[in-house]
């Protein structure tokens, strides 16, 4: 457990997060790093694992060094491209008979326009274990190191997780999308009500928050198909990827069932809003270049409309729908449309998606359907607005649709069932 910077209380994991109290020794760690600039990188990293001038908890220090190692991946600084230097030197050595080492280096350095010392320095300058330590990037501070270390700590446990249960409020779409893109099974439902017995143990402010947010929260149960048969490690990487996306949610609580080592008794990891876990870098806001391009192009052609990337999820009987975008008119916010891109999915997926949309009785949904997918008019929801695309979603077609609806008296869409739109004029690849 010390290796994982944690201990167990009952069957629950207690993570030893890095906090402000750790900043003094984290600063000392960074100072030690600065002292080692120019020395061999692996030797410096080894030194950083040894006791520091300021007392530091050993397991936390190891974790911080791991993170620091990742954050300071050194750039190559050499007078000659190392690969070229190696080839020239080793071939010259092989063909020079019994010539002394210094003669070989002199001959090659002369040919490459450098001196023997620099040539020797360049020989392995690009290799992780042999490279010199580069200066510390300015963006690295004790605070950032602590935040990244905490994220890594949670990730280390999630790599050992078999299943994850998340209760989250707001911006949950990215979590669901990630789980699905990674081939995980993600059962989605409304957030469960707080049980009476649980209410008694919760702090009042948390209880208030939960009760207030009960209406728009979602409950996600994430696991992998193979996890049904035994504890498996294959989903660890995908489950790890949930955490940075979860941090986007307004509030969340994650519970993961983990095994510290294969075959060990399962223990529960709990991470929730307020824990000192922050993403080290901004996540990619889009799942695909198609979405990214549509958002950019629509903002350009429709200055009166806002494109909301993470709209609120919509309840549909027992499940939740996560539209890709919400289009909101700036001056008349009541004019809202949900936009869902359906592309590169199996017919079975499409079938299920259409069924959920029908169940939700959404009257303001725009479906962008990849023309390559087989989807007959009859299967579309009765009130769906459809735009067909190939590789590129024409923003003007979407604008015409939303403005066309605005021209009618009612803000509610009133169109023919499954009425196809006129072909758009944008760049289409038929």
């Amino acid at each position: 457990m010390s290796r994982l910077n944690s201990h167990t209380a009952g069957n629950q994991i207690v993570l030893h997060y890095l906090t402000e109290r750790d900043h003094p020794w984290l600063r000392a760690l960074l100072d030690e790093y600065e002292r080692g600039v120019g020395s061999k990188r692996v030797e410096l990293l080894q030194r950083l694992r040894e006791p520091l001038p300021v007392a530091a908890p050993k397991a936390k220090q190891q974790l911080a060094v791991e993170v620091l190692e990742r954050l300071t991946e050194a750039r190559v600084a050499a007078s000659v491209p190392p690969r070229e230097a190696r080839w020239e030197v080793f071939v010259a050595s092989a063909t020079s008979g019994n010539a002394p080492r210094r003669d070989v280096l002199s001959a090659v350095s002369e040919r490459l326009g450098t001196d023997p010392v620099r040539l020797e320095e360049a020989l392995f300058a690009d290799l992780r274990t042999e490279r010199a330590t580069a200066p510390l990037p300015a963006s690295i501070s004790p605070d950032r190191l602590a935040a990244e270390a905490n994220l890594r700590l949670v990730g280390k446990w999630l790599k050992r997780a078999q299943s994850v249960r998340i209760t989250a409020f707001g911006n949950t779409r990215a979590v669901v999308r990630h789980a699905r893109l990674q081939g995980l099974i993600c059962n989605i439902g409304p957030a469960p009500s707080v049980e009476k017995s649980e209410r008694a143990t919760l702090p009042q402010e948390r209880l208030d928050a939960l009760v207030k947010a009960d209406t728009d929260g979602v409950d996600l149960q994430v696991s992998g198909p193979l996890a049904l048969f035994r504890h498996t490690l294959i989903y660890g990487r995908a489950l790890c990827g949930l955490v940075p996306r979860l941090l986007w949610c307004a509030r969340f609580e994650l519970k993961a069932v983990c095994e510290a080592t294969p075959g060990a008794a399962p223990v529960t990891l709990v991470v929730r809003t307020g824990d000192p876990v922050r993403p080290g870098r901004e996540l990619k806001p889009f799942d695909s270049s198609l979405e990214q391009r549509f958002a950019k192009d629509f903002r350009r052609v429709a200055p009166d409309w806002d494109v909301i990337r993470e709209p609120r999820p919509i309840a549909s009987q027992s499940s939740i729908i996560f539209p890709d975008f919400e289009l909101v008119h700036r001056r008349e916010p009541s004019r809202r449309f949900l936009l869902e891109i359906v592309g590169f999915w199996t017919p079975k997926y499409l079938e299920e998606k259409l069924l959920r949309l029908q169940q939700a009785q959404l009257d303001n949904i725009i479906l962008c359907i990849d023309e390559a997918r087989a989807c007959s008019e009859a299967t579309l929801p009765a009130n769906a607005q459809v735009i067909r695309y190939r590789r590129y979603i024409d923003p003007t077609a979407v604008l015409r649709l939303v403005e066309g609806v605005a021209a009618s008296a009612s803000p509610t869409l009133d169109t023919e069932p499954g009425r196809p739109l006129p072909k758009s004029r944008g760049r289409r690849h038929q």
Partner: protein
Amino acid sequence: MKLLFDHGTLVFAEAPDLSRKAIPGLLWDPRIALYRAPAYRYPEVVEALGALGLPLTDMVRHRLTQPLPSWQQPGLRPYQQAAIVAWTLAGERGIIALPTGSGKTRVAAAAMAQVSARTLCLVPTRALMSQWLAELARYYSGRVGCLGDGRQEIEGVTVATFESALRWMPRIGDRFDLLVVDEAHHFGSGVRDEALEMCVAGRRLGLSATPPEGQHLARVEELLGPIVFQLGVSDLAGSWLSDFDLVVLRLALNRDERTRYDADHRVFSELNRRFRTMHPGGSWQELVSAASQSAEGRAALRAWRRCKQLLSFTQAKRQAVAALLARHRDSKVLIFTADNAATFAIAREHLVMPITCEISRKERERALLGFREGKLRALVSARVLNEGIDVPDADVAIIVAGTLGEREHVQRVGRLLRPAPGKRATVYELVTLATNEVRKAAERRRALGSPHVATQ
């Protein structure tokens, strides 16, 4: 009822109530409200469903029966033919164990040509993947797919690295009827096994020079089948493999090294003695786990690591390497070390090309080609050259130190045994006197069978 492949598992859609006893691996999956079974049990599942007489639409079989371009049967040596016969008689499922240099890839190509089914070949490294692609292209008229090294091409016959296979198998595990696993001893524990579990292929062929043992073997047998054919180095050396001499150089520590070694070794020996008294027969992992619980134990483990580091490249070994490289200046020499630190130390001192995991595939290929053509006279490596890389015509090996025991030793010696007319290889093993290297070296030699040993 429909049988579907879903992310490395089998899903039973529109199924009636099924008995878990009647169908191997069957479980009810409440997450999707359907029955599910592991993909690797596909042949048993289909057989069991057939026995139950249930109407079945097998959506998995549909993908497996698409026809392939033609194969040309490769010419085989007698022992290779025998291996194929043994594998066929075992129901086209099992492991063939042959020494390095004896043509395992060709055996696999022969099996693939014989079966002519959609095949996925798993190999441990990118370098080996390139070799497989080249070898298969000699006998297969179609395009060979490739997963790994930045390529994502899936064809009827595809070669993938272990890592890529693990990532891709949930999506492609239903596309192959034959699964070939090179260096199969890498399986048997850990996450890699899950790649084999997620494939429906009923026909399976494992290849290894050093098949796994104990619990690992049982697990590999479950996933690939039993060892159906096995030959060692001594069975083929001098006939189908080059003959070789093993020269053991017994070297001493200098005074300073001896003082440091003895001090550290004493600390570790005390811990080891106490552990063995309390846990007779305890494994190394158990010892490390127990030692990690106390400061004293951790200090002992650090002492053991220092011993190991010291022995990896002592002053005497340094001198011996220099002398041997001078002596074999006109030979092609492979130098094997215990770690990358020693590898780079030798590379710097003697200006010989290091091959480590940090050297890119392109550079490795260039180096191997240079070695083959005589532009480079020596290569030094800790682990990368141990297995999987085709290094023809090397005739001298210097084993400076090793970390992985007999298995590693057999693989390393195998690097020299690719036959050539009149070839007799020489293996130098550097062993430090009065250290635990002496015992380990003896164990390694036993693993080779009965080589011609000379000591100096």
